[in-house]
């Protein structure tokens, strides 16, 4: 059956079938800002639900229940924050929210409990510090991510921070690109470790050199959510100076084809790439550009995943960067302020034109941060002081690498505990393995509360997705369970995991995970990654391994 209609639908049909297209046509998402004063004057109760949807264009989602509190997603392109930027976010969290804050898997920071009446102040405060939440949600180019040690790392092919900034600036508030068929995720980096997960982005620009000249290979059509797909190599080489034009042409090909606006269930770029295949998709891009692209090949995937944690000398003599774990990705407003103060103090100033000297806070994909441009001789002192803020460098791999989505109590989609459950699982594994915890290596736990996969459960060493059980609690309440996804991963073994264990009760899921880990440690070939161990065992074997003791089941 053809998945995309053969005849391109007209706008009338698109708007008839697709509520969001109709809503955007009546009033664009960005336009809601002009109405904000009137909305505030009328009071939250009187504001139409449609305008609540439009607020997504400013990075705002309703917290749960939908009674007037908002989550705000602040974009941090490339994950790069100055001390002043972080201080501003911390101040907003404390002044306008309730001190909460969380780092996301796409280098954003999310705040909660914001009230509509304070939004103009919040947005102005952000803007004054050179930050924005515009386009962080809704049908926009979302935060453009990159390697968190861009410009610092000794192995980096070349520095592409300028391009990343240019692309981010170009798409933000650009009306043409603020009415996309759906959300759109771009990543740009020249990190040899490909730490930015190019496999699962709509568009990934992968730095490569040709005759010593910097340029990019392009991967397209990756994404997770309910239809996970690894990106395809477009087979091109794009000189760095033409990269933004190519990004635009790819977006144009997609956003101008109304076939991908009829159904939001198939509106992401990955569906178009899958329908056409990379070769025909490339032809469409070339036609849109009006010229052919040079042939090229994407750099080979690295052997394993890298997150740049720990202390490393920088390319710049005398400077070092240090990657600190943030357990569960939670960083509250007070911690932001203290970290910003520390960074400013080390820098000797807040902000600077010579950015190499200012201590930057770089956000990572695994919800951690890196302090950049540290004077090498002061690193031990800085590590002690960051630990005092609540981020010990030696927190252990498990805590560092475990990620969970926002979940309860804030998210309207989640059906299960996320960060709280992850804490329980990690704490249990630490206690259960004790001295042996090192044997777990760099185990990546990715836990989500719903199928949207904000925490990438499809590609964790062990991925978890929340669900509910058929069985009820004593008072008839819903009980939480988790599907366990195994065999997924990024880098050389990039693969989409499968839900091998289904509906494991929430109160025993930590035991199932412990057993899977023990079986791997005891049964692995020398150096065998957990993904490979899971791949060479059948579903039945893995279910048997994870079997939870009868006395627990009887509880």
């Amino acid at each position: 059956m053809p998945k995309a209609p053969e005849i391109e639908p007209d706008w009338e049909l698109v708007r008839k079938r697709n509520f969001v297209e109709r809503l955007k046509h009546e009033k664009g998402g960005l336009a809601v800002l002009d109405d904000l004063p009137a909305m505030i004057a009328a009071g939250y109760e009187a504001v139409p639900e449609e305008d609540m949807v439009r607020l997504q264009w400013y990075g705002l989602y309703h917290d749960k229940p939908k009674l007037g509190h908002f989550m705000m997603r602040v974009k941090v392109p490339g994950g790069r924050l100055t001390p002043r930027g972080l201080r501003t976010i911390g101040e907003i969290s404390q002044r306008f929210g309730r001190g909460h804050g969380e780092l996301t898997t796409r280098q954003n920071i999310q705040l909660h409990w914001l009230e509509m009446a304070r939004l103009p102040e919040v947005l102005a405060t952000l803007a004054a510090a050179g930050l924005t939440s515009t386009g962080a949600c809704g049908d926009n180019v979302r935060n453009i991510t990159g390697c968190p040690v861009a410009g610092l790392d000794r192995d980096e092919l070349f520095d592409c921070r300028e391009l990343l900034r240019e692309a981010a600036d170009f798409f933000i508030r650009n009306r043409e690109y603020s009415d996309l068929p759906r959300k759109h995720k771009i990543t740009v980096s020249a990190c040899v470790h490909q730490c930015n997960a190019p496999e699962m982005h709509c568009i990934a620009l992968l730095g490569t050199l040709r005759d010593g000249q910097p340029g990019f290979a392009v991967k397209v059509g990756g994404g997770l959510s309910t239809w996970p797909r690894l990106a395809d190599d477009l087979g091109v080489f794009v000189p760095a100076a033409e990269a933004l034009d190519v990004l635009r042409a790819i977006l144009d090909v997609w956003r101008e084809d109304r076939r991908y606006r009829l159904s939001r269930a198939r509106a992401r770029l990955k569906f178009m790439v899958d329908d056409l295949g990379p070769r025909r998709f490339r032809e469409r891009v070339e036609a849109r550009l009006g010229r052919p692209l040079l042939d090229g090949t994407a750099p080979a995937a690295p052997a394993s995943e890298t997150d740049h944690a720990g202390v490393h000398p920088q390319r710049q003599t005398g400077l070092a960067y240090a990657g600190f774990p943030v357990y569960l990705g939670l960083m509250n407003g007070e911690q932001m302020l203290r970290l910003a103060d520390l960074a400013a103090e080390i820098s000797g100033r807040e902000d600077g034109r010579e950015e190499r000297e200012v201590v930057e806070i770089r956000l990572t994909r695994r919800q951690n941060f890196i302090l950049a441009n540290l004077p090498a001789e002061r690193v031990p002192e800085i590590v002690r002081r960051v630990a005092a803020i609540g981020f010990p460098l030696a927190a252990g791999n498990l805590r560092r690498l475990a990620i969970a989505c926002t979940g309860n109590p804030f998210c309207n989609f989640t059906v299960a505990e996320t960060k709280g459950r992850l804490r329980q699982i990690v704490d249990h594994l630490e206690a259960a393995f004790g001295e042996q915890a090192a044997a777990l290596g760099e185990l990546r736990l990715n836990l989500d509360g719903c199928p949207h996969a904000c925490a990438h459960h499809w590609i964790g060493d062990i991925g978890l997705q929340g669900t509910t059980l058929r069985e009820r609690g004593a008072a008839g309440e819903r009980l939480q369970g988790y599907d366990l996804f195994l065999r997924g991963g990024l880098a050389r073994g990039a693969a989409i995991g499968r839900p091998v264990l289904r509906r494991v009760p929430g109160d025993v899921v930590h035991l199932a995970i412990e057993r899977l880990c023990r079986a791997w440690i005891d049964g692995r070939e020398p150096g065998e990654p957990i993904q490979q161990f899971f791949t060479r065992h059948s579903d039945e074997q893995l279910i048997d391994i994870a079997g939870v003791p009868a006395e627990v089941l009887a509880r």
Partner: protein
Amino acid sequence: MIHEPLSQGAPSALSVPRPATVSAAPGAPGARGVPAAPGAHRDLLDEFEAGQLANDFDAATPEEMLEWALARWQKQLAICTSFQAEGMALFDMAWRIDPAVRLFTVDTGRLPQETYEIMEQVRERYGAAIEVHVPEARKLERMTTHFGPNLFRRSVEARLLCCSVRKVEPIRGALDALDAWVTGLRRDQWASRANIRKIEIDHDHGGLAKINPLADWTAEEVWDYNRAHDVPVHPLYARGYTSIGCMPCTRPTGDGEDPRAGRWWWEKNAPKECGIHCPLETGGLEHELEAMLHGGEAER
């Protein structure tokens, strides 16, 4: 026509439904659930399979969708209806494919007489035994004794409690015994429904499959179908109702009036979208209900 949507490894429409992983592996964690009745099978999609099917079926007609789902789940599938236009269209389509298709509804105890009339009409017209689920007597007794029969007018919380006892819990009970259910959700109804897929896993209700065959239909197409097939129409539509639920909580809306004014119009400080835009079928109602009645479970 039997639809064959997947090229690789998907169970064909006519294959014997396989037991879910859970029952295939005694001692596995999932086996903790209530044991299935003898002879009953569990054929539960997993998330990956559901995603692939949803993509393959995205342009399928409602009839194709139903034909496939009925062949796969047979008696483990049922259509849920409150006798509004969407549910009636779906039932008519499904009945033409398989007259033994199961249809269930909830009698909340506060339905308008017209709903009972159309129930009779459906029984007669299709020879169908409508499965009627009712609230748990003791809970209802406790609730009305304690808060009175019209508690829904007191506060949003009280109304949510009433919805929970009279509607949500009976539907959950019905879903517990199924492997798949069919809803009349449509994408053009509201922003949060614009993303629904024709096949999803219903993680709000124990992970059964949720089939939304009318996802890409407009209201007009539903009415056209019903007219063309002489499908019984709920009498309250003719009196200006746009959404039909419990009698005290729905009312007709005038021309040009927002249909949202047809439900819980007296409420102040109700959660946004808690009216007609976040129903039980999307999980939205239950999320609001749990957050409002039980508070955030993990206040960070």
